[in-house]
């Protein structure tokens, strides 16, 4: 019976061929590690946020006189409202954690390199949309931190040349963050996730064109690929189980750990809290913003600090295959960069002191220095590695590399070291 229905559909829609081509027979490198689970996890958290968000929106009121109360209504009166709210708030942090690990995997293993640049850039676009969604969502509870965080960040658009003042007013719909701002942020916060879903589909189409990279960074021979289903469907589900345990520990036992106390106070435009702090996932970029004493400079630096990742495919000039596994200098840079992000996060969190200001400036300089120096260091490292002699397993991998379907005119991709 089932087969006849499927046959009927197949005559009208490429259902079976799609499932075969992109799921059950889709070739995936057999050596993928658990660091490759995070793309799936990101997609899962996206669905979780959309689901909890839609049900929260059934009770939330986007009006300055009603929003704080509506959230208390959700927390206290709506059946399982507290659960929906905590899932959604924790989910936002979970989303960023998963995405940052996903990006770290891509950087470490060189998965941004040709021919996967478009994957990296669609990912970059998705990150920007995610940041915008999170920023707008944070205003919705209309707490003290919501209000003042939105005030500070919308103020930054004053840096726009010539029209700065008007841009800020246009963004807010008012002279200060107010009811107009809240209503439009709610509208856009509801819209953007669906644009993100669209972006994810583009990201996945790109993925299925170039196929996954793998921990060695060198594309494996065809025989070393295995079908995605059942091997990676079950591996993704197992990874999901682990993720959900950590996620649920936060939702059920530590939900307030990620919420600033000041956000339990209704927004007061007449009084700024002593300590304005963004959510943890924005801290490093916030630190970079504050490290430049000039308004325009700070905004440019912050914007650049997010966008600079886009240049990675061109900044990395090494032709040694893959990512950090066979490149010790690149690996060191990666770890130093990670430490720098933590330092920046700390600087972003603490109230400015003489100490932290200096630390912030050094860490910001270091942040950009990493990118600026990468072209030179990667070239030098390549020469050093060739002189030293490549490890035999790399040579073997390169030798057995499958004939690529994608023939690039320029040679600079994994495996081309001539």
């Amino acid at each position, binding site marked *: 019976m089932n087969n006849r229905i499927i046959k009927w559909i197949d005559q009208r829609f490429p259902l079976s061929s799609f499932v075969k081509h992109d799921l059950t027979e889709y070739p995936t490198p057999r050596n993928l590690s658990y660091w490759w689970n995070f793309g799936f996890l990101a997609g899962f958290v996206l669905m979780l946020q959309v*689901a909890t968000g839609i*049900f929260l929106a*059934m*009770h939330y009121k986007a009006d300055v006189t009603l929003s704080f109360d509506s959230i208390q*209504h959700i927390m*206290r*009166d*709506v*059946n*399982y*409202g507290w*659960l*929906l709210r905590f899932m959604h708030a924790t989910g936002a942090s979970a989303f960023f954690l998963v995405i940052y690990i996903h990006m770290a995997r891509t950087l470490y293993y060189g998965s941004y390199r040709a021919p996967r640049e478009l994957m990296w850039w669609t990912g970059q676009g998705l990150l920007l949309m995610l940041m915008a969604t999170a920023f707008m969502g944070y205003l919705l509870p209309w707490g003290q931190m919501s209000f003042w965080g939105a005030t500070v960040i919308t103020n930054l658009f004053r840096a726009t040349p010539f029209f700065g003042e008007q841009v800020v007013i246009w963004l807010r719909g008012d002279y200060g963050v107010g009811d107009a701002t809240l209503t439009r942020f709610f509208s856009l916060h509801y819209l953007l996730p669906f644009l993100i879903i669209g972006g994810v589909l583009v990201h996945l189409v790109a993925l299925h064109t170039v196929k996954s990279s793998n921990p060695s960074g060198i594309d494996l021979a065809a025989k070393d690929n*295995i*079908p995605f289903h059942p091997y990676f469907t079950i591996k993704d*589900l197992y990874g999901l189980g682990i993720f959900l345990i950590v996620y649920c520990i936060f939702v059920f036992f530590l939900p307030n750990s990620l919420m600033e106390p000041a956000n339990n106070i209704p927004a007061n435009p007449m009084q700024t809290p002593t300590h304005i702090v963004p959510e943890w996932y924005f801290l490093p970029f916030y630190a970079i913003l504050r490290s430049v004493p000039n308004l325009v400079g700070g905004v440019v630096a912050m914007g650049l600090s997010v966008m600079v990742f886009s240049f990675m495919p061109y900044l990395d000039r090494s032709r040694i295959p893959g990512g950090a596994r066979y490149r010790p200098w690149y690996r060191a840079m990666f770890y130093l960069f990670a430490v720098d992000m933590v330092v920046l996060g700390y600087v972003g969190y603490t109230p400015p002191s003489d100490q932290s200001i200096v630390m912030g400036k050094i860490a910001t300089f270091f942040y950009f220095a990493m990118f600026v120096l990468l072209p030179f260091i990667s070239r030098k490292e390549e020469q050093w590695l060739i002189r030293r002699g490549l490890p035999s397993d790399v040579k073997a991998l390169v030798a057995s590399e499958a004939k690529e379907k994608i023939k690039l005119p320029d040679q600079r991709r994994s495996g081309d070291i001539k």
Partner: protein
Amino acid sequence: MAESDTLGDSNRRNFLIKVTSVVGGAGAAAVCVPFVASMNPSSDVLAKATTEVDLSGIPEGGVHTVAWQGKPVFIFHRTQQEIKDMEASNGGFDPEPDQKRVKRPEWLVVVGICTHLGCVPNKEGPGWTCHCHGSQYDDSGRVVRGPAPKNLDVPPYRFIAADKMIIGEA
């Protein structure tokens, strides 16, 4: 993929996968519960289980509409003539003596929701008329013209003072 299993192996494999699928499916079903439940009336809505009504402001012949559990309730202060007329018959399509529908004959308390499809009828002359589909009720809330099938509901209520009643508690 080499399938090097004996019949015993594949049975064990199928069993494990079956059990895991059942456990996973149960979890997926359980996750739906809070989402669906959140759409049910919230506790503040349910808390409005009783409504106190002050009757002193309702003159003879007057009708007062109060909210009880989010529904309109008609409190009708009937004149002696209206009481006599209602006691004279058993109503229309859903026969019921007037005495069974009131605790004190001068106070008629009925839920103001048409028993057809839920619109709120208007007080017009004697009784109520529902303008959605034309149903009519008499001064005892009994249906005298369809398409409504039943008389207006009498909610649980009681008098707590000479001029005070509480709706929601018998």
